[in-house]
């Protein structure tokens, strides 16, 4: 559980902060959609800070089971002891529970959140025979990336239709440059050039790239450049190499870097 003391940096792109506050006021579960590295997790951290709620983040993976969320019995010298899982803890204490990349979890796992996310706001712990009533401050947030998911990995309609959703995308160029500059201390002109490189890569999505260069990768590149690494090396290392193994795309992006950074 984290309880941010200092304000996380988040640059609103539109009125999403106000909308989230409204959703929280009604305790509606929230779904955040968008490509990787565009600021979904940062947004949740920021909102948790702004609403002054503790935040519990769970990174979902395909080996995750229901008990990883709900809790399990632990063995002790004198018998067993129940340990709440992150979701149960959040429901009991009134935290914001954030399930990151929820489609990665197996579909039977995601079903456990159903009772929590409708009017019941209850969490049945069948192993324990307990029905946890969610704390009035509790809120569930999930995120997923509709971009690279295959047909196999999609949320069930019954799950999807329990959330209000925010669509995230990379910020527009000027704002993104400002964000990169603010995050790393790099000057804005250079940051703008970085965004230009990223934009070229985003146009190749679907032409052999699954996903464009994220804001997060740009921040990495900017960090390297701020540390004195040359622009060409930093871009190649942080922007191009991670996202593709395709020689043609790599050559094109490398060329874009030389074209943008003289």
């Amino acid at each position, binding site marked *: 559980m984290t309880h941010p003391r200092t304000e996380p940096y988040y640059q609103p792109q539109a009125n999403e902060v106000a909308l989230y506050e409204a959703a929280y006021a009604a305790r509606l579960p929230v779904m955040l959609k968008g490509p990787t590295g565009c600021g979904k997790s940062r947004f949740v951290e920021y909102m948790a800070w702004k609403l002054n709620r503790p935040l519990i983040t769970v990174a979902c993976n395909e080996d995750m089971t229901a008990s990883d969320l709900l809790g399990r019995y632990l063995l002790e010298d004198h018998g067993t002891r129940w340990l709440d899982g992150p979701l149960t803890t959040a429901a009991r204490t009134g935290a914001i529970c954030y399930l990151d990349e929820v489609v990665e979890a197996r579909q039977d796992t995601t079903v456990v959140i159903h009772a929590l996310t409708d009017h019941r706001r209850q969490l049945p712990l069948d192993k324990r025979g307990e029905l946890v009533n969610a704390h009035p401050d509790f809120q569930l947030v999930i995120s997923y990336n509709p971009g690279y998911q295959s047909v196999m990995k999609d949320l069930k309609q019954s799950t999807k239709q329990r959330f209000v959703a925010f669509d995230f995308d990379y910020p527009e160029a000027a704002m993104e440059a400002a964000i990169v500059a603010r995050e790393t201390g790099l000057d804005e002109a250079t940051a703008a050039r970085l965004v230009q490189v990223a934009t070229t890569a985003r146009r190749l999505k679907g032409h052999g790239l699954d996903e464009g260069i994220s804001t997060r990768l740009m921040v990495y590149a900017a960090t390297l450049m701020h540390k004195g690494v040359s622009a060409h090396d930093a871009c190649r290392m942080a922007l191009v190499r991670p996202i593709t193994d395709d020689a043609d795309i790599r*050559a094109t992006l490398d060329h874009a870097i030389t074209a943008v950074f003289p």
Partner: protein
Amino acid sequence: MMQAWRARLDCRFAEVEAVFEDCMQEARQVLSDSGMLAYLDSAATLGKLGRGAEPVLTFLQTWPQTAATVGEDALAAVMDGVRTINKSPNGRAIAPLLQTLPAVSRRLVTPNLLQQYLDLGLHILAQTSGSIHGIHKTYASPCLIAFFESAPQVLQVLSMDGMRTWADYGIRHYRSHPDQQHQYFTLQSADSRAVLQRQRHGTLLVDHLRKLDLYLQALWQDPLALVPYAITPDPDKPMLSGQAPYYDDEGMRLPDVYDTRQGVSGLDRYRIAMAHMAAHRRWSRAIYADNFSPAQRLAIECFEDARVDALTLRTYPGLRHAMVALHPAPQPDACNPQTHSCLRHRLAVLSRALLVGAGVPSDAPVTSDTNATLLSFCERFQESMAQGESSTEAMANLAIAYLARTRCQSDQFADTWFADTVVDYRDDNRSLWKFHELSDDEESFATHRTSADTEQLHHLPPRHYPEWDYSSQSYRPDWVSVFESLHPSGNAGKIDQLLAKHSGLVKRLKRMLDLLKPHARVRLRHQEDGNELDLDLAVRALIDLKANRQPESRINESHRTDGRSIAVTLLLDLSESLNDKAAGSQQSILELSQEAVSLLAWTVDQLGDPLAIAGFHSNTRHDVRYLHLKGFGEHWDNEVKARLAAMQAGYSTRMGAAMRHAAHTLSAQKADTRLLLVLTDGRPSDVDVHDELLLTHDARQAVKELSAQGITPYCVSLDAQADGYVREIFGNNYVVVDRVATLPEKLPKLFMRLTH
């Protein structure tokens, strides 16, 4: 001195006499004393060959230049070659050989390379001169003269090795066709140009299409087809309007090959050319040309090009280096206005100043009025650009003002100064202009001429595939034309009758299918909730429990059915031999194939795998027909059955091309396993191929290509004697069905065995 030389030459041709003194003076400049004597002796020999004045005259004129590049020691080799040619029936080739020596020697600068060139000439002579009884060469080679005449042009683009390959190809393929041989060596035939193209040095557009497509998409967001056009490699004609890149509705047209120039790689040159065109498409607006004179248009194009380049550099400053390197750097005083029209030159100087000065102050010193004008217009250009993107109209005004300021009388001269004025990464600006009225001299490009007959016959344009030539271990480029069409339809009921006839077999197949299905199950372990206990994990968990450690709670297992992922193309050989009666049966092989294919299609449909069926036959390499019977998207329904019912056999078996074409569609299928089943009844053959091994080797090469693409070819041969060649083509992936009558039963079973 001159008298002594004349005496040594000992030649009384009047034509020689006329040029003798000039030649001697020229030779004196480059040749040593001994070289001079050898020169005269060789000329004397040539004069006495009895072949008239031409050889000696040519030699006297060309040798000094040749000697200047390769050295005078090469003379002995040349004279040896001449003597050999003279002894053959090819005496007339001596003059062309000597005539092209200077041009050839400019490319082959060492005596060693020149020797190789002469050897190649003699090799061609030996291979192509005709003989009657196989002993004496009696007929002149039809191509030797053509070879010597094309040599300079070929060497412009090929190295000596490339030229040897090119010549070998011509000799090998056209040895028995004198006319085609001549066409090949004069670079008139399509094959000749294709082979030349493949041997070229430099960056070929086709090799980098994807990279360049991605470039346009990523940096310009302007996806446009890239179309290569052939450029004639001739240094005497710089790239003028006909050779410059251009774009139209159908795409960007770029030269098919770019060499590295000024340290800019061919690939980067393509990118710069494309950047320039994309910039025009983004920032230029077509303006009416009718009111401008040609000179004004030239100037407007110059300013407009500079404008879009400047805008490009604003976005992508990293391109500056390459752009400046590719722009010619004309010397300001290279062109003399007294003798030449300097307009192009003046604009080229201006263009460079605008390009280099677009951000950096021009380094040209202000020494004269011309330079002052130049600088003032550079400033006006920068001012215009400083306010934003400026516009084509603003550039037009600037250009007209510039022309008015600098106009001089000599601009009207016919003798135009061209050196260093062509910026070859820039397009010809045809899209910059629009016309109020289409004049007579308007060239119309890409008018489609279609002949009604071929349209009727083939609905789709042909696809060309290479063919493997085992004797040279190389591909014949674009050798085979494959026409793809839908198979005509017949009566679908016929297939249903066939299936009914085999109802017993169908039942047995069905039982086999049912047996197969449960096997496709995969065990899922480490489940918290599952159907069964996974004993291994349960025991381990119990041990942990007893040892007071945290036990693993995921001790169950369950099963799930495995998704089959197989895509199959069945390729049927529909050649003439299928009409034969099968041994021990009243039915023809065609009818049996029909039954077998129907059963197979039914089986595969039951299994739910994607299946395509196609037939092929060929009538020479120009007409390989590929007939669709069933596509991947189609179900086993009446339409497909109707096509299958109309199956007919005819012509020959060009297997390699058909397999390559089948692979083309099959490789687009998303499946873990892609299987190409080839059903054939004989070895690959065609009426225009006399070497029966050729198509066998080609098919084997096609199999290799398919394997490289992740496609498994598998052959079902109905030829009982097939073992020899089928193994050679398909390796171990084949089965020979000896009793063709059993085919309907065997084929579906074989398929099931193969895919499980």
